[in-house]
């Protein structure tokens, strides 16, 4: 099966950024310094001085010469330098830290060993940041990290996280922030403690002497008074002086031009840029105006916008002259941010209506050259939604709406889609957005429309779109609990799998991971555990990467659930803990592993009678940001909550509401019936328990065992024995099942007076349960078991230390060491309603007399109730009773 085989063997390409965009290198490379750059020694010294403090902030207006100053200094440092040009996408902490980690790795391969890439754009956990800081702190020599254009990072939480890492990395990290505006770090504190060096706008301003040198570099030698005037007029602003030099060079009489300029009153940048631009040959002007819509560009892309072929030479020349163009890595260039901004204004003014057309062309070129992320951004900015959605779908990137670092960003991008955009691809993207919001009704309706359009258009020519449909079909099937539809979706996917170019499949490991996760969930809902395992195992086996992080974690959580449902609690626990650990390594908040995994941990805690822990785990799932929304987790959560209430003795509240789905789930029904039946049995209502189990699947061992228990309580021992004799021979059942089988057999033997057999069976149950600390089956077994445990030294020995307290106390230990916790009776009998009422008043420090008055009964009646409460709680005094009742959560 293609999907399955491939899921395990997908290789994640190295050298691409976490979101798969190939612009990584350009964003993470030091800009090269042009020939006309003037190294200003005083500023280099200031930066060198700053080497002794952890933080340096280079803070100045646009065009103050910050970037080139720091790039030139860093290039000559002799230390590993990590350079990162921030981006609007870095507003998402996950994206910011993913790039930052990549920058550090690029600077020095050993910079951050063992720190994983964040899995989600929206959140980065302290743990990941702490590991990053520790890795930096362990370095022998510091790494210098430069964050250029840091003003684009507007999220206060990122500034705060950066402060945390900086503080904990110690001398291993030297951070240089290059920014137009004051960063949101606690600057006053850094200033006060002398931990920060600053180079501010006033320091960056050119002195007369420096301006003279710069003009000389541009081939202009001018009298001092002219230079002084120029510095006065521009305030020593680097961009102003540079532009002035360029504009003056274009004139026959530079000196008088500068004089005129000095007397002028227009805003410097705007005026000079227009001057310099107008001084360029027309085709060069056109090029500059047109590339202003791009963040970064290569000659081929520029040619696509100018419809010419000479971009390479033009860009090289522009960079040499250093008017506007910065050279990045390889053949990538970018415009100086200030000039780009002004040029865009000029473009709109001089070429009205051209901008969307340019962006459309850029989007197509970027798409062809494999730069999907940038293509989507340009297509969206052009309002060309048919193309943009089509690019996402045909690139097989629909899955990126659900997983990976770009999920949030892409959802936001397409949330702005024009509702009039028609066609299969926009409709598919809308369906994906609906489904990711768990709006199944709308999602499915749109999906059907998209499929109809595709088939009408000859969908066989668009295998990637068909795969996208299959992915959404599988997700919808999972959300509605329709296993057949999920199987059908995956079959459809397999049919078109071979039609899709292999490199696309390689670039998108998330697609098969998501498909198989949805299939596994649907199979799990149907109770086909082995088939579910077969679908989920390859997802867990695929190499960890940010792209597949979420489906991997979900698959791991569901595999844990399969283990738990087949009675293997310890295996389930290990898988769930592994999932939680992996989630944490990938920067998700601690304790936010997959929902299924956390529910499994709660269920196992109930089985071990660690009720407080179970409750904490369930409480933590209650304030989830996004529910998984599939019936598997919803039904299982209801089951765990029911079991917890039952264990707490809340026999009235222990009910498991059914979860709506297309087909019923055998295990969900079974466990709901078990909880209801156990609640009835706890109140001694065997008949109601039997009624509850009537419709439950009899071929399931657990139901048969519970039925037998109810029959024994009802005094129908022969029927019970008959049922026990013919228990379904289920394969590979774990201890949670086998222990209960042994106990019901023991109970039947005990009832028949065969104490020897009962002891033997209880011993077997104790042996099976001890390793996994399964206390719940013994606590639910009923009062018959207590004398057996008490009177048999062997059984006592088997139970001692995990089920009962060490010898002498005759009580039950719970999860905490016995020393911390008063021993409790092995099995607390249920208190009657009246007994509870008495106990509550006892806790409120009422006297016996007051309780009697409060309940309108005689003092003797209260004393009788009290005796029975003491007996049931295994205590002898008031205060003890209250304490014990609190431990057992009866109060």
């Amino acid at each position, binding site marked *: 099966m293609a999907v399955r085989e491939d899921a395990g063997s997908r290789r994640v390409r190295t050298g691409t950024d976490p979101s798969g965009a190939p612009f990584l290198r350009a964003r993470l490379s030091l800009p090269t310094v042009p020939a006309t750059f003037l190294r200003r020694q005083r500023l280099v010294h200031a930066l060198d001085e700053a080497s002794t403090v952890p933080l340096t902030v280079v803070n100045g207006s*646009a065009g103050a010469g910050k970037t080139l100053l720091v790039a030139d200094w860093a290039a000559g440092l002799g230390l590993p330098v990590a350079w990162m040009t921030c981006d609007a996408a870095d507003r998402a902490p996950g994206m910011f830290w993913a790039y930052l980690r990549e920058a550090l790795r690029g600077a020095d391969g050993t910079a951050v060993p063992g720190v994983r890439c964040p899995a989600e754009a929206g959140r980065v956990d302290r743990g990941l940041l702490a590991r990053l800081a520790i890795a930096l702190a362990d370095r022998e020599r510091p790494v210098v990290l430069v964050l250029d254009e840091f003003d684009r990072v507007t999220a206060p939480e990122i500034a705060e996280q950066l402060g945390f890492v900086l503080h904990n990395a110690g001398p291993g990290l030297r951070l240089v922030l290059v920014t137009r*505006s004051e960063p949101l770090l606690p600057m006053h504190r850094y200033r006060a403690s002398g931990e920060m060096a600053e180079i501010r706008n006033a320091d960056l301003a050119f002195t007369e002497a420096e301006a003279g040198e710069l003009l000389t570099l541009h081939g202009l030698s001018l009298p001092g008074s002219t230079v002084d005037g120029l510095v006065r007029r521009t305030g020593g602003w680097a961009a102003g002086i540079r532009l002035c030099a360029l504009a003056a060079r274009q004139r026959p009489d530079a000196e008088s031009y500068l004089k005129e300029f000095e007397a002028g009153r*227009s*805003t410097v*940048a*705007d005026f000079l840029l227009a001057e310099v631009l107008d001084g360029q040959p027309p085709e060069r002007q056109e090029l500059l105006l047109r590339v202003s819509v791009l963040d970064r560009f290569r000659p081929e892309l520029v040619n696509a916008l100018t419809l010419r072929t000479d971009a390479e030479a033009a860009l090289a020349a522009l960079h040499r002259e250093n008017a506007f163009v910065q050279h990045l890595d390889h053949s990538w260039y970018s415009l100086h941010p*200030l000039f780009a*901004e002004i040029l865009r204004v000029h473009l709109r003014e001089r070429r009205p209506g051209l901008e969307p057309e340019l962006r459309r062309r850029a989007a197509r070129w970027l798409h062809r050259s494999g730069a999907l992320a940038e293509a989507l951004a340009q297509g969206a900015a052009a309002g060309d939604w048919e193309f943009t959605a089509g690019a996402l779908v045909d690139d097989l990137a629909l899955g990126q709406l659900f997983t990976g670092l770009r999920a949030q960003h892409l959802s936001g991008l397409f949330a702005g889609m024009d509702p009039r955009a028609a066609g299969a691809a926009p409709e598919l993207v809308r369906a994906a957005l609906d489904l990711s919001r768990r709006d199944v009704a709308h999602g499915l309706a749109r999906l059907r429309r998209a499929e109809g359009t595709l088939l009408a258009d000859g969908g066989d020519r668009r295998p990637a779109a068909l795969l996208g449909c299959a992915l959404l079909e599988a997700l919808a099937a999972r959300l509605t609990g329709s296993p057949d539809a999920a199987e059908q979706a995956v079959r459809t996917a397999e049919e078109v799998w071979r039609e899709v170019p292999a490199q696309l499949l390689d670039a998108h490991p998330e697609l098969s991971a998501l498909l198989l996760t949805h299939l596994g969930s649907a199979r799990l809902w149907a109770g086909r555990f082995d088939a579910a395992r077969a679908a989920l195992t390859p997802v867990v086996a695929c190499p960890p990467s940010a792209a597949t992080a979420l489906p991997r974690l979900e698959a791991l959580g569901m595999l844990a659930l399969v283990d738990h449902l087949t009675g293997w609690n310890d295996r389930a626990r290990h898988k769930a803990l592994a999932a939680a650990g992996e989630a944490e390594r990938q920067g998700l908040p601690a304790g936010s592993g997959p929902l299924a995994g956390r529910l499994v941990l709660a269920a196992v805690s109930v089985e071990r009678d660690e009720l407080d822990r179970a409750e904490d785990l369930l409480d933590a799932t209650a304030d989830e940001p996004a529910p998984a929304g599939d019936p598997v987790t919803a039904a299982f959560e209801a089951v765990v909550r029911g079991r917890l209430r039952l264990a707490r003795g809340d026999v009235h509240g222990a009910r498991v509401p059914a979860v709506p789905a297309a087909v019923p789930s055998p295990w969900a029904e079974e466990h709901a019936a078990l909880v209801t039946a156990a609640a009835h049995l706890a109140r001694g209502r065997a008949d109601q328990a039997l009624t509850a189990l009537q419709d439950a699947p009899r071929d399931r061992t657990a139901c048969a065992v519970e039925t037998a228990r109810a029959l024994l309580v009802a005094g129908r021992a022969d029927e019970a024995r008959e049922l026990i004799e013919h228990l379904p021979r289920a394969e590979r059942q774990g201890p949670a099942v086998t222990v209960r089988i042994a106990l019901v057999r023991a109970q039947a033997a005990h009832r028949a007076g065969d104490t020897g057999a009962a002891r033997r069976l209880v011993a077997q149950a104790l042996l099976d349960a001890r390793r996994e600390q399964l206390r719940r089956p013994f606590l639910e077994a009923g009062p018959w078991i207590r004398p057996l445990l008490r009177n048999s030294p062997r059984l006592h020995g088997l139970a001692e230390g995990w089920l009962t307290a060490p010898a002498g106390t005759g009580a039950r230990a719970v999860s905490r060491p016995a020393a911390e916790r008063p021993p409790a009776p092995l099995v607390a009998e249920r208190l009657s309603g009246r007994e509870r009422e008495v106990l509550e008043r006892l806790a409120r420090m009422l006297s016996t007399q007051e309780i009697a008055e409060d309940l309108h009964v005689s003092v003797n009646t209260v004393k009788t109730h009290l005796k029975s409460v003491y007996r049931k709680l295994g205590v002898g005094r008031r205060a003890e009773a209250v304490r014990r009742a609190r431990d057992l959560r009866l109060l």
Partner: protein
Amino acid sequence: MRYEFRIDGDISETLAKGFPELEHVVMAGQTVLYGQVLDEAHVYGLLARFQALGLRLAEMRRLPE
């Protein structure tokens, strides 16, 4: 809310068109851009645009309605 922003220097007609939501008038070596702003976010957005275009903000104030 109505605001006015005073920028050092005379800005060109072209650059003024970069702020279609504002009127402008040039006086005494300053350009006054004024008009209706939607909310605080809009104000900060305008400030960032001034900065990005290399304009020096001398003064800003909210105008009485």
